[in-house]
């Protein structure tokens, strides 16, 4: 029970962090069709900006300024980079963002160095909020949950209940029509891309001190975010949310259960010994492959339900 409750909380925190990252990507991917490889780089930039800003004027201003900076960079990338590349099709876009991710990593290494930077959580939140079965639950994790929940609400309301959300949705499905009605479609795309990048930046600000801020953080977070987006389904914020929480919980609980295929077979009266064929594979325990489970699930969903959990069209 103890392990269950604590793992549930941990899974939730990690899942919400994933959601903050993935929501921006899912916006960009579903609206513009751009598979943005540089998305996790914006996450990293957010963390580094927040680190530098918090050294001078504190964490709270950084919480606002760093995502804005990331958003501006995103807008610049869309206006002067992606828009030109866009004419050459999706492969060109994909390669463009891939190159961008490598360049950003190198720039970060040259600016802030290869070592992790001491980006710490603000003192105001540096205390255990409550203690559950002897394990501290840091207040900062609760704060992360709060920020991501607010963000989810804000995006959802913005997209479904405001005029600008309406225009964005229209521009995505029927760009020519929206343009004929007098809306500036390229500007809407820039806005969406900037907003997506800013969201990743925000995730970086609150994720950078929860994990470690170092040049490899984009590289380690990148793949899992793609899994979330594909699993949740294109164009669905709700699907993305469910997938994020699910991935967070799966990774957390996979660690806790020390079971293997051999144990499962033993239930059916089939005992695995060293002589059994594939004994090596059958006795691998769940925690050892926990980190791979999300990728396995992505493969399965692509085979059996290509549109993802709540997607509106095929990936």
């Amino acid at each position, binding site marked *: 029970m103890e392990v269950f409750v604590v793992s549930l909380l941990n899974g939730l925190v990690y899942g919400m962090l994933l959601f903050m990252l993935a929501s921006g990507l899912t916006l960009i991917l579903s609206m513009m069709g751009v598979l943005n490889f540089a998305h996790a780089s914006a996450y990293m930039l957010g963390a580094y900006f927040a680190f530098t800003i918090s050294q001078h004027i504190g964490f709270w201003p950084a919480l606002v300024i760093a995502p804005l900076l990331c958003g501006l960079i995103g807008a610049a990338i869309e206006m002067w980079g992606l828009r030109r590349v866009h004419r050459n099709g999706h492969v060109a876009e994909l390669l463009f963002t891939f190159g961008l991710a490598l360049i950003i990593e190198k720039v970060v290494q040259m600016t802030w160095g290869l*070592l992790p930077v001491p980006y710490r959580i603000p003192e105001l939140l540096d205390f255990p909020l409550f203690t559950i079965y002897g394990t501290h639950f840091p207040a900062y994790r609760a704060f992360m949950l709060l920020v991501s929940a607010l963000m989810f609400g804000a995006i959802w309301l913005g997209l479904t209940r405001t005029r600008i959300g309406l225009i964005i949705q229209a521009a995505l499905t029927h760009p020519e029509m929206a343009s004929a009605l007098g809306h500036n479609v390229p500007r809407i795309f820039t806005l969406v891309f900037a907003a997506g990048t800013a969201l990743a930046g925000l995730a970086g600000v609150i994720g950078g001190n929860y994990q470690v801020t170092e040049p490899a953080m984009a590289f380690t977070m990148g793949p899992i975010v793609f899994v979330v987006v594909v699993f949740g389904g294109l164009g669905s914020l709700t699907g993305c949310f469910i997938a994020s929480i699910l991935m967070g919980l799966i990774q957390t609980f996979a660690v806790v259960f020390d079971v293997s295929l051999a144990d499962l077979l033993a239930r059916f009266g089939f005992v695995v010994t060293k002589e059994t064929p594939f004994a090596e594979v059958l006795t691998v325990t769940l925690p050892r492959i926990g980190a791979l489970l999300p990728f396995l699930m992505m493969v399965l969903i692509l085979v059996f339900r290509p549109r993802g959990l709540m997607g509106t069209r095929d990936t």
Partner: protein
Amino acid sequence: MQPRKGLSALLGFVLALAAGGTAWAQQTIKIAYTDPLSGPFAQVGDANLKQMQYIIDFINAKGGALGKKFELVPFDNKSQPSDALIALKSATDQNMPFIMQCSGSNIAAALIEAVNKHNDRNPDNRIIYLNCGAVAPELTNEQCSFWHFRFDLHAAMKAEVMVRALPKDITKVYLINQDYLFGQSVQREVKNYLTKLRPDVQVVGDELIPLGKIKDFSPYITKIKASGAQALLTGNWGPDMNLLIKAGVDAGADLRYYTFYAHLAGGPTAIGAGGDNRVLAVMPFNENVAPEIGNAEAEAFARGFREKHKFDFSSAGFRTIFEYLQAAINKAGSLDPTKIAYAMEGLSHKDFLGFDSTMRKDDHQIVSVYFVGVFKKGVKYDAEGTGLGWGTAATVLAKDIDQPNSCKMKRPKM
């Protein structure tokens, strides 16, 4: 015909340059250095590179070897054995007598095999592999090679140091290691020495994790707490170590952490003040050893690096490698790798802290002094500006960790 003449003149010039280049290159003793200089483990490779460069400058200022200076040539291997082999190829193409590599026993295993093959086939262009930190015991036992010299204690020796440092009141331990050659060796050896030296200690958990894949270790900490362990023993390095301890400290787990690599670049920053008196590491050197034993000269040497690069000099032990090289080359009186290798085996040396060390002849494994450092407040030199630093909790002399080996060394003709 004028243009063609111009072209051949240019060609001649380029050739002359190239020839001049090689002539100049022979003035230095080149050491190819290959480690991850990009990717998730880049921080470790980069820190090593800076520290070695500092040491080489120092050794060169003292005259190098045979009147020649050492020169380090870095190659990024991105933690991939295949890239390390490309580095080896470049090194042998340029006739470099040495290749050095520190991170990753899987890479080391590939290098040993490739160096053996290369040296068999090219008796007049051989290369020596200096291993500065790949510590799977297999490399100097089953896989031992005449061309391979290891300048760090292997995992079994480190495991013994770690187990010896466990206080009497700790009776329940949890093991977490990375799921590859090195991590599995640590897992095996720690259990082995626990049975031998501390039969009262119970292993309540024993786990392997995928290398460099886990971003949040909180679930592991929950599990460790539930198991009732008092100490966590781990060979993890890089982000796998940093994130693990950070998660433990954040959760306020009442644990002591016994590590192989918490002192390396990035570790202290990730651990922070919450790790005060909880985190221990087995290490060949820390900056507080010199002031603790009152060796002012060694202290000044370490301080010089700190002032120049603004970060810790955690691997000053690399100086021993270059002092061995210097001694072996001077003893051999030649730059022929075969002669140097013969000169190096069995060589003994007093390191700059004043402790004895020996490059064992049977398996080319160094035995040297080792320390157990504890991360705490109030030491003279802090680590990575955290205000906390490594104080020496235990010192284990070379003669006490001289473990047996099973190497059957094949030696070439001189």
